[in-house]
């Protein structure tokens, strides 16, 4: 019973984890992309559609990543090349993604993915590790997507903290003028990481539509993109903490079903993740510290000509 609950927590946290890591990379490049919800939806619908027509789980995920990155490209072009307001550009991307996914998804309502795809994402127990009492069953008896999520959080961490490219990225986000002066191609870094961020958000959306739900629902993300943006602040731009934060919020989003037996209205319980997001945001804003500060150059357009 308890094991089943925590297994479900990890599943519910996985779309959040991908989207949070995606937004984290984007913000490290100095760009606040409020289009996470839209990119997740576009990834979700692209992944589901390709999964439906090709019955190939890998193609479906690649399609979701490409679709997520393509939608991030709109944002990137507006904010990097055209120096448009990041908040408004991101919001428009969310509105666009919501509309586009609903438009395309109309054809997918009620359709079922093939057995091949569903089975591909069945849980796989990792030998030895899955035999650790309690934790093994929860953490190491999951689908391969979830393992990819663990790996990705660690990889992003190593990339940001231990590699030259990652350090350059941090420089771009903190002080683009200085990075530019030291020979870093600022716009290239921004574009690449905005696109990578979009690809990860798309992947997070596809996990929802292909593995977690798995069928098409209009507006399938239901605010998870926004929770992911809050999670980036919550985890203080640290990918390792993102792992923890995503599962914490995954847990909150499903705890409602478990509490139903105590005769509390489902509609009130559904408020929990949103309510907790607010509380967490307030708490993380209260204790300001240098370590928890956003990148210095976040949301500030960079004009080389005006340097």
């Amino acid at each position: 019973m308890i094991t089943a609950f925590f297994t479900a927590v990890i599943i519910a946290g996985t779309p959040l984890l991908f989207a949070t890591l995606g937004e984290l990379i984007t913000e490290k490049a100095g760009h606040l992309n409020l289009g996470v919800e839209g990119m997740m939806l576009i990834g979700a619908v692209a992944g589901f559609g390709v999964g439906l027509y090709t019955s190939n789980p890998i193609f479906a995920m690649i399609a979701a990543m490409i679709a997520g990155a393509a939608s991030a490209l709109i944002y990137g072009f507006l904010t990097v090349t055209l120096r448009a307001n990041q908040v408004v550009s991101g919001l428009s991307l969310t509105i666009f993604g919501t509309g586009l996914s609903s438009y395309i998804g109309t054809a997918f309502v009620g359709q079922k993915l093939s057995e091949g795809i569903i089975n591909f994402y069945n849980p796989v127990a990792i030998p030895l590790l899955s035999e650790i009492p309690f934790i093994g069953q929860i953490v190491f008896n999951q689908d391969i997507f979830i393992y990819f999520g663990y790996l990705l959080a660690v990889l992003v961490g190593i990339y940001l903290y231990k590699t030259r490219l990652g350090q350059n990225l941090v420089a771009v986000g903190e002080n683009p003028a200085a990075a530019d002066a030291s020979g870093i191609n600022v716009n290239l870094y921004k574009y690449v990481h905005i696109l990578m961020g979009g690809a990860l958000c798309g992947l997070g959306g596809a996990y929802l539509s292909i593995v977690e739900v798995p069928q098409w629902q209009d507006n399938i993300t239901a605010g998870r993109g926004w929770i992911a943006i809050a999670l980036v602040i919550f985890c203080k731009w640290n990918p390792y903490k993102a792992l923890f934060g995503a599962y914490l919020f995954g847990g909150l989003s499903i705890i409602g079903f478990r509490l139903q037996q105590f005769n509390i209205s489902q509609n009130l319980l559904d408020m929990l993740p949103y309510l907790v997001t607010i509380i967490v945001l307030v708490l993380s804003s209260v204790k300001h510290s240098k370590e928890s500060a956003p990148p210095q150059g976040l949301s500030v357009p960079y004009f080389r000509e005006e340097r």
Partner: protein
Amino acid sequence: MLRMVKRTDMTSDKAALIRVFSILCALFTAGLFIAIMGHNPIHVFSSMFMGAFGSVFRIKDTLTISIPLILTSVGIMIAFKMKFWNIGGEGQILMGAFFASFIALNFDSVPKPLLLLMMFIAGFIGGGLWALLPAFLKVKFDTNETIITLMLNYIAIKWITYLQYGPWKDPKSMGFPKIANFSDAAILPKILGVHAGWLITLVIVVVVAVMMKYSKKGYEIAVVGESIDTAKYSGINVNRVILSALFVSGGLCGIVGMMEASAVNQTLTASLSAGYGYTAIITTWLSALNAAVIIPVSILFAAMIKGGSFIQTAFQIPQAAADVLQSIILFFVIGSEFFVQYKLVPKSSKKEERT
């Protein structure tokens, strides 16, 4: 290669021309999208237009949709002027509707004019309080208002749904989850065939436009939007400006909720905000935060919504196509700002330009 140079020769005519051109580009792009989806774009656009304006009845419908859009946009505009990104219009509409419905359902023996007035005030307070919360968190803890206002949207929807399925469920609805219909006294009358909300909205738009331009409060809001530091140095109580402006911003959205509950739905439902809170973000931005421009832009968007639902029945094109169209227009107009501010010149002329 090209490089960009700040424009100094931009007139407002030229800027308007660039924006109109960008909308044409957007329509062209949207047309391509429709063509890819296998429909004839010219056919679809003209049907949308006819669906929105093709008969007196449709025109009335379009205007009825534009009323909440205009008023929500004006409400949001006040917040946007301060660069306070209030995207919680949806929730503020619902909470205004909730407060107004509380009055409508419990005081239906009060004479009609008084009851409607009470509902207005309640709606204003409901929406205002729902916007005051993120404003308070912003000034007190510097929390990100975008996320908070959005989270409050979801909470408001869940709250109304809870009422609809639980404590406020109409016992006479035979188990169907709906809240009781308002009595006649709580329903806004019609003026010239469209509910009286249009007149109220027009009055509010004029008042807000005048306030923003000529009053001290309007000036303070503009200064806070330009630079919080400047505002502080010039002795403006920044926190008070943000709090009071947001109360009004949310309050206007709350009045939208009251009008939608009273005149359009004649009851409270979780779906009465109908996405106006989000569409208003687009219309507000496209109007360059100018109250007078909000009216035509909102009517245009109301036409797209109405036309969008028309093509759904005529062509079986999902209504979401209208959302896609709207966001494409938004992308192009956002992008066009660059060409209002800068011009591109060939890189070879760099040396002369620098001097």
